[in-house]
């Protein structure tokens, strides 16, 4: 049982205040230190050292299989759901190492929300989809839930489209609406960070534009990490970009600089469409 109590230990909330005293760079929300990851025998991430700044949009680009999806799923430890995954190294989130055994993945995921490649609403009503997160975190009062649902749907730019049919099944929405609903579902738990794994890859151009506008409006409040294989999208919406290749970070910098004058020739090749 002693071991189990350890398992549940959650970093003390006071760490928030002590952040300024720490040497962690003031505006970085995630800091990975020589992060390595293996799927069985294959190494998917190699020595990743990245500082992801808060309240901005960080894009992760690279050809398929370069480890960008794996990387973003490591940030909220979703990667653990795949059997035979092994990690080495540290990821610091607000000063604590989230990869350490005594950091609860469930606690982490309430702070670090995620939006997935394909919209994945639950087979429930629109209302229940958004209220799911707050409910599992202990909010039962109807009036508060109502407020949360309304606010989240408004913040996700979908309130006007669904306010009259909150009790209808979410499967009845269009793909783009479903994805904005999933973003609303994520906002409802009031995360600090939102991870987005190619959130527009399954959407049509009009829906994509809407979601992109939404992402931009969210960066005032949230730190956003977005994986995309669409370089234009990265250039349009992100503040900084990391280019991944074969599990390594080739280049990381301000988005305008990375796209206009890349320092690495491989980055140059990629953004000019020579491979990928």
């Amino acid at each position: 049982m002693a071991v189990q109590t350890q398992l549940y230990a959650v970093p003390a909330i006071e760490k928030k205040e002590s952040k300024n005293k720490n040497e962690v760079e003031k505006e970085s929300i995630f800091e990975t230190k020589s992060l390595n990851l293996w799927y069985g025998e294959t190494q998917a991430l190699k020595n990743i050292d990245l500082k992801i700044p808060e309240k901005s949009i960080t894009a992760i680009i690279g050809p398929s299989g370069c480890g960008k999806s794996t990387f973003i799923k490591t940030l909220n430890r979703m990667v653990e759901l795949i059997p035979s995954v092994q990690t080495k190294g540290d990821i610091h989130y607000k000063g604590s190492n989230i990869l350490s055994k005594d950091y609860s993945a469930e606690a982490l995921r309430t702070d670090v929300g995620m939006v997935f490649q394909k919209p994945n609403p639950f087979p429930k009503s629109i209302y229940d989809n958004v209220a799911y997160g707050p409910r599992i975190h202990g909010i039962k009062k109807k009036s508060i839930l109502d407020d949360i649902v309304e606010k989240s749907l408004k913040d996700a730019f979908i309130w006007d489209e669904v306010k009259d049919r909150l009790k209808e099944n979410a499967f009845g929405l269009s793909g783009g609406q479903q994805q904005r609903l999933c973003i609303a579902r994520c906002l409802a738990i009031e995360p600090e960070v939102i991870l987005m794994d190619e959130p527009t890859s399954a959407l049509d151009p009009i829906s994509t534009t809407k979601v992109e506008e939404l992402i931009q409006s969210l960066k005032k409040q949230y730190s956003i990490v977005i994986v995309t294989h669409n370089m234009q999208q990265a250039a349009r919406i992100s503040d900084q970009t990391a280019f991944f290749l074969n599990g390594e970070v080739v280049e990381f910098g301000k988005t305008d600089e990375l796209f206009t004058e890349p320092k690495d020739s491989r980055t140059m090749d990629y953004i000019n469409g020579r491979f990928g």
Partner: protein
Amino acid sequence: MQYIDRLQVRKRINFRLRLNSILKYVFLGATLSGLVVLAILLIRTVSQGFAWIDWNFITGHLSMDPEKAGIMGAILGTFWLMLVVVFFTLFLGMGAAIYLELYAKKGRIHSLIQTNIANLAGVPSIVYGILGLTVFVRLMDFGSTVLAGGLTLSLLVLPIVIVSSQEALRAVPQTLGEASYGLGASKWQTIKSIILPTALPSILTGSILALSRAIGETAPLVVLGIPALLIPFPGGFMDRFTALPMQIYYWTLDAALVEEYANLAAASIIILLLMLFILNSIAIYIRNKFQHRF
């Protein structure tokens, strides 16, 4: 505007995680509970019956005296039943499966037969007993013979054999058949020399499993009026017989009269389970040894 109090959320997480891991063990316990009962059942039966198994018990004739009673008649009866069931289900089952998978056009008739097979699989075994009693025992006047019992059990497991054979045929890659057609082989040639041999191990596995279902069946045999009397060993399809499950049934019922009969029932259960174990092992052996992987 903050609705969610982080401090509260974190306080709750310990509770939620503990609940999660407690229930994980409850769920595991539920999964294992059935196995625990199975273990008790096996241990009890073996400890009760094992001492009663000796050469005389296996090879001897039935007797009112528990010390002298043997179950050779029941064992032979079960073997005779198996012969009938194997003969009928293998041909009928394989043939029907070949027709449904490889010949039939996917239309009304096909789906009618298919639905019908699925429904038959859900009919209680005692209803088959009544069918056998009416048609084989009385109408065709076979009496309570090996043939009547075997035919009844064949009908009972036929849906299982057909469905598993269909699955086996479906697992044969289309490219194999196409290669044969490409060389100018006819449909039946292709089926006979390419598709069927490839699917045969799986078909046999499924049929053996169905056979083991058949020899454990009791209800239809009781309805057919299969006795557990002092009758001669069966020597042909038209002979009266008894079978292992029937022997177990009567000894269990009569345990109220003679206590030792319960031990004889336990001993017979061991023999029956042993036969099932051997059949299943053969099925698994065939599957692992011959099954092609595509």
